[in-house]
């Protein structure tokens, strides 16, 4: 992936929402590329995040991204510890236990609201803090002050049955992403929405990429998060004369 020249200052990447999938793959790839990496999660003591700290020097942060004050504190801490972020990935699914596979007549309103807060509202909060800081960044060699990427899902493209809360959350996230893109791109901040139209299969301890729900028969029908991370990096490095807004990723065998 040869791209245009980067500025001499190291990139500071913040990934909000951390687990074994896309966030870990992003942290590894970004660190390999010489970026300083921060990763925020409700529970940063997850083993997989501790390993990122040990192997990559990624800095872990505790953050409930649906809480405005917590998100503000997160960005202050990142600026203090790592520097001003130039790449922010919002990577929160947001669904809470008890909301999965619930029809509209049975979904608990409180859980639906929590899903919305965790997903779209936290995207707003993270996007807002990122934009406030990035506006003041110096443009890099590509003319960009920073990149904000929203991980999204199939539900951003279509509302599936028994998934109303998630559909509402994902489409709201697309909306805030689109609005931010139109506002911020002319100011030199690249905003992208990346719906992953697939189940994610990360490499497990035993070397396989089986998904927890998909059994063991994996024939590339699960998106490999290491490859998703490559797309995020490519978006971050696009020259500002050719910025992409929405990139849907799906496996070759996926029906859609």
């Amino acid at each position, binding site marked *: *992936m*040869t*791209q*245009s020249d980067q500025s001499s200052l190291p990139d500071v990447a913040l990934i909000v929402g951390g687990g074994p999938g896309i966030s870990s793959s992003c942290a590894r790839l970004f660190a390999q590329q010489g970026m300083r990496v921060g990763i925020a999660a409700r529970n940063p003591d997850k083993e997989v995040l501790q390993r990122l700290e040990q192997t990559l020097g990624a800095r872990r942060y505790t953050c409930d991204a649906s809480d405005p004050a917590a998100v503000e504190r997160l960005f202050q801490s990142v600026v203090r510890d790592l520097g001003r972020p130039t790449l922010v990935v919002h990577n929160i699914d947001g669904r809470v236990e008890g909301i999965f596979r619930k029809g509209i007549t049975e979904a608990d309103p409180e859980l639906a609201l929590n899903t919305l807060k965790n997903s779209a509202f936290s995207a707003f909060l993270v996007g807002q803090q990122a934009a406030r800081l990035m506006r003041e960044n110096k443009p890099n060699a590509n*003319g*960009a002050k920073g990149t904000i990427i929203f991980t999204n899902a199939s539900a951003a493209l279509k509302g599936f049955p028994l998934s109303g809360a998630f559909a509402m959350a994902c489409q709201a996230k697309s909306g805030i992403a*689109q609005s931010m*893109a*139109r506002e911020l*791109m*002319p100011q*030199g901040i*690249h905003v992208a929405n990346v719906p*992953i139209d*697939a189940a994610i*299969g990360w490499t497990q301890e035993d070397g396989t990429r089986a998904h927890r729900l998909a059994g063991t028969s994996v024939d*590339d*029908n*699960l*998106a*490999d998060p290491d*490859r*998703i991370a*490559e*797309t995020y990096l*490519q978006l971050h490095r*696009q*020259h*500002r*004369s*050719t*910025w*992409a*807004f*929405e*990139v*849907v*990723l*799906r*496996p*070759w*065998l*996926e029906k859609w």
Partner: protein
Amino acid sequence: MQPVCLVIGAGAGIGGNVGRRFAREGYHACLCRRSDLDGLNRLVDRINSDGGSATGFLLNAIEPNAIEERVAAIEADIGPIEIVVYNLGAQIGDRPLKDTSLKAFETGWRLGTFGLFRLASTVCPLMEARGKGTILVTSATAAMRGNAGQHSHAAAMGGRRMLCQTLNAEFASKGIHVVHILIDGAVDAPDTLGKMLGPEKFQQLRDTRGKEHDGLMLPAHIAETYVYLAKQHRSTWTFEIDMRAFSDRPWWNH
């Protein structure tokens, strides 16, 4: 034999730059365009002198069998076509309905939609037999939005987008990656935008919006995304991508 990247519509803009970029990746670039043999030779010479390899062909995509025969000859004489870039534009400028002739509409459709159909009919069986291939299709704002005066162009590009979707539906699971690439803005391309505007207006646009302003899409940078798409792992293919200059207004609901 060296794998081939076939570019249909290779001027000094996206087509030529994409061909050149794939030549740097080790493909033999087969560059096709309708006219301007001198311009074509310059593109080919530049690739060859950069250490790549390329061949140029004059090709009128509207002529019966022109695409089909070119594909067959390349496969026989040069190598397997692994990457196809369909980059023919069909923009004729804004024209109200009364000024859009039947002929203009039909030509738009032949360049916009039918040429891609003929190309796909010819290369898909070859790619399917090999179990892999990439078809990168340049498209335009008009594929998403029918703006005033775009009768011919919008119909042609809307057709192109839907054709890409049905090609993808049939061939993705057979290893052929089809990508509909939305170029949602003016490209700094002397052979298309430059000719449409004339030299004076084009230079004016370059001075005010292009160059260091980065408000015109720069084809050399667009080419990076084409190469990136062709390299995507099959567990994470993109079917459609939209690109524009950072300072431009997107097509969606102006």
